[in-house]
């Protein structure tokens, strides 16, 4: 990795200040993506701003929202009794991200800011119609994800927390893992909550996470695996790689969606 300056500010304002003053500075969360990228010398930030001392970790529940701090590691989401109760599909999703080490370092904020097209969280955030809160504003999930590794975040903008509207009646995630990386080759999150019935797919789209309106309509009419069994997402626009063609991914979307619906009960 190339040399960089390291900061661990104690306030959000200080962190924002450093990041705003220097376009080459980057926030550092769990480092599970950023550090490997630096080690491969694919990125050359001038400064890293560690978000660990900003008090951004933690889970809160109110009658209308489950709020997860940006620095909350996946393991904490997975084992949280509140999350399991309020949105079981979300806890389940967090429980099979990466491995034990990754789950203890990687954070929800880092995952969303990175918006890897095969990351898991974007599917939940989009399907549950969550709101991404930053140091300066609130962004609806529908506006946040803007294509592979691209989000609505402005340079230097820090995600502080993610609010999932409650109550959620049904939620489940099914993931067909890419065999080597074990990221989502096709991940489908299905939800029924304040934002209606939603189906979001990750891992498969060339532009990252996306919704499947036909499935949403069908499930709104009748919540059952059979009601979406015949709905296919066109392979156009889906990823083809050594692990699976677009046609195979298209097929898996339906299979994973059916299984998620069954799992949600």
């Amino acid at each position, binding site marked *: 990795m190339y040399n960089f300056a390291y900061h661990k500010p104690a306030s959000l304002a200080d962190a924002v200040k450093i990041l705003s003053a220097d376009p080459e500075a980057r926030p550092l969360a769990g480092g599970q993506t950023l550090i490997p990228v630096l080690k491969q010398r694919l990125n050359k930030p001038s400064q890293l701003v560690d978000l660990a001392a900003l008090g951004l970790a933690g889970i809160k529940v109110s009658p209308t929202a489950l709020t997860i701090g940006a620095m909350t590691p996946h393991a904490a989401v997975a084992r949280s009794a509140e999350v399991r109760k309020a949105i079981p599909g979300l806890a389940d999703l967090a429980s099979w991200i990466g491995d034990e080490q990754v789950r203890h370092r990687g954070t929800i904020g880092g995952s969303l800011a990175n918006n890897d097209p095969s990351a898991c969280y974007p599917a939940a955030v989009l399907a549950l119609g969550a709101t991404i809160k930053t140091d300066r504003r609130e962004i609806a999930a529908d506006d946040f994800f803007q294509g592979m590794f691209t989000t609505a975040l402005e340079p230097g903008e820090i995600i502080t927390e993610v609010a999932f509207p409650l109550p959620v009646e049904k939620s489940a995630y099914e993931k*067909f893992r890419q065999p080597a990386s074990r990221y989502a080759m096709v991940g489908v999150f299905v939800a029924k909550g304040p934002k209606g019935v939603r189906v979001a797919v990750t891992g498969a789209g060339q532009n990252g996470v996306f919704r499947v309106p036909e499935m949403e309509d069908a499930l709104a009419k009748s919540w059952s695996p059979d009601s979406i069994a015949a709905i296919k997402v066109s392979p156009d626009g889906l990823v083809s790689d050594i692990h699976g063609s677009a046609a195979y991914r298209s*097929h898996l979307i339906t299979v994973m969606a059916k299984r998620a619906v069954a799992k949600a009960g």
Partner: protein
Amino acid sequence: MAKEGIGAAVRRREDSRFLTGQGHYVDDFNRPGQLYAYIRRSDRPHARIRGIDVSAARNAPGVVAVYTGEDLAADGVGGLPCGWQIHNKDGSPMAEPPHPVLALGKVRHIGDPIAVVIAESKAQAKDAAELIAIDFEDLPAVADVRAATAPGAPRVHDDVPGNVCYDWHIGDLAAVEAAFARAKHVVRLDLVNNRLIPNAMEPRAALAECDVTGNYTLYTTSQNPHVIRLLMGAFVLHLPEHRLRVVAPDVGGGFGSKIYHYAEEAIVTWAAGKLRRPVKWTAERSESFISDAQGRDHVSHAELALDEEGNFLALRVSTLANLGAYLSTFAPSVPTYLYATLLAGVYKTPAIYAEVKAVFTNTVPVDAYRGAGRPEAAYLLERLVDVAAMETGIDRIALRRKNFIPPEAFPYQTPVALQYDSGNYEMTLREALKAADYEGFEARRAEARRRGKLRGIGISTYLEACGIAPSKVVGQLGARAGLYEVATIRVHPTGSVTVYTGAHSHGQGHETTFAQIVADHLGVPYEQVEIVHGDTAQVPFGMGTYGSRSLAVGGSAMVKAMDKIIAKGKKIAAYLLEASAEDIEFADGVFRVAGTDKTKTLGEIAFAAYVPHNYPIEELEPGLEETAFYDPKNFTFPGGCHVCEVEIDPETGVTRVVNFVAVDDVGRVINPLIVEGQVQGGVAQGIGQALLEHAVYDANGQLLSGSFMDYTMPRADNLPSITVGTESTMCTHNPLGAKGCGEVGAIGSPPAVINAIVDALKEFGVKHVDMPATPEKIWSIIEAHRPRLAAE
């Protein structure tokens, strides 16, 4: 049997060291004043180098030197040698294009080393390497053997037309053709043996130093330090053996990939001499993917002729083997004498003919990888036999039994050069079927069906040849080395023993197994035996560890050396006990005058030998130390039966291995715990090859599976709990009766897995599925047949 002697399940003594982080690997060594090398490698599959500008790199902070291929050539550094020469059908020698240590004029694969930067720190070396400006002219590249042999294909080496390194054959073509002409059935199969990346846990590393007198030491991650000293000293750097010490300390896995002499070893050794400072290089994992020799990569067509009753009449095989861009050290032997000679397998097929074209491509060099040629042969044969069963309607087990070489036929001469000494294929088949509850399978299939799953069972009755090999024979076959092994047994004055072996342990547990053999044979406590390996300054000589040879060949050298110790001990005992040497018996560490209670322990004899006050000094030298070179009389022939049971999810195509039984004949078992571990590891690799692992290059030679993000290593949850059994017939020609167990797992398992998958898919009329049998491949097969099934 002694508590820790031959046959005892002793826990591996090296494990406490490894598990507590006390292992000492090459990268753990650091020498005063040490510099760090970083290698700038090609990111092009094939390009002409029009110019290299290293001036910016030379001036970068901390940089001590930058060298290119021209610098090495100007100093007389030779190319990397190839240790095996194959001859073409017409008797001419294979093409042997130069293999420069650092590229000269052209790069031929992603990862091909171009220049080395040597700096005070690793980071400085790496920073400076980026400053090397290389003017490339991209050339058309070729990665696949079929494309490389097509007319008009780009040439990897200008003077190798058609990219064919050799066009070789074995067997009696006329006899095979005659048999095919009168056959009742002919079955045909096209199959690919997928390319694999070894991925030893420890990446390769090399650290060299040169002292003021010009004596060199190289610490390297090698399976055979003496071979490296020989090849690098004699062919590359022109350093005589007495000035070059090669140490291979703890090595974290090899699987073949650490047999070869690699460019980096020569680079750091040469640079250490130039700079008179130690130079260290340690591969990053991403370098391992593009610079460790890879394995397999065959494309074959096979045909089997059978008579009315299902007797095999003849086998005809034609194989294209991918060698990559250059000849790795032993590459030519793998798709020839380690492959085609195994095509008889466990069957009495009377006529066999195989032809192999070895082909250069713009890919990382290919060489021996766990099993080396033998997995390719076993896979081809065991798949073909299943296809024969399917097409003739004869039960696959009955068909195998009908064609087995029967136990009374040994020694058995195959039509492809090998002579098997012993084996009992019916025995391992029977035991494996029993352990797998083969009889009960159809009930399990039906039960799985009720759960919506397709269940299948497959077997393979495989054979391998290992314990490589009689020097005279391999010399006739083109080896440029002998393949004996060496052991020195040093009995210390108080009776404890140090063993110096030319074999090298990098995961095999030699420190345990070898100590058991010596404890057993000399009757000394196991704790009093120490095993030393991996250092040319300590061990007299050795050919190293590969091809499951350490026990069969290296262990036999120990027995031979111990026999000399005992013979000398008898003479000493005879003198001390006033008897004649012929009357002295040796057992359990005690020399005894036969039929009397007059005895001397080995410790007493050793003491007398080192403090020779009362000693036949006129006739016998003092001391108690013997060295033996053991040259094997034949290969050894482990074999057995693997049974695999899979369940396929027809909706996704995902295969799960739900049951796996391996019953192997490895000859005498010294330590059942270690044998089981070796088989488990081998089966894991075999299942990995069958279902998951694949080095994928695009048509232009870009490696698409260049990291663990895309190259699928098998993990614990991909594997069932593996049932391992052993059923032994003894090797008849070595003193231990041992055959070897290091590779059986990786050889027997892939065809068992694929046979099980084809069985699970039998209602779809599937004949074959290429490895790795990924979910998408299987789903596509099911998809293609779905309309037909729906119609029926």
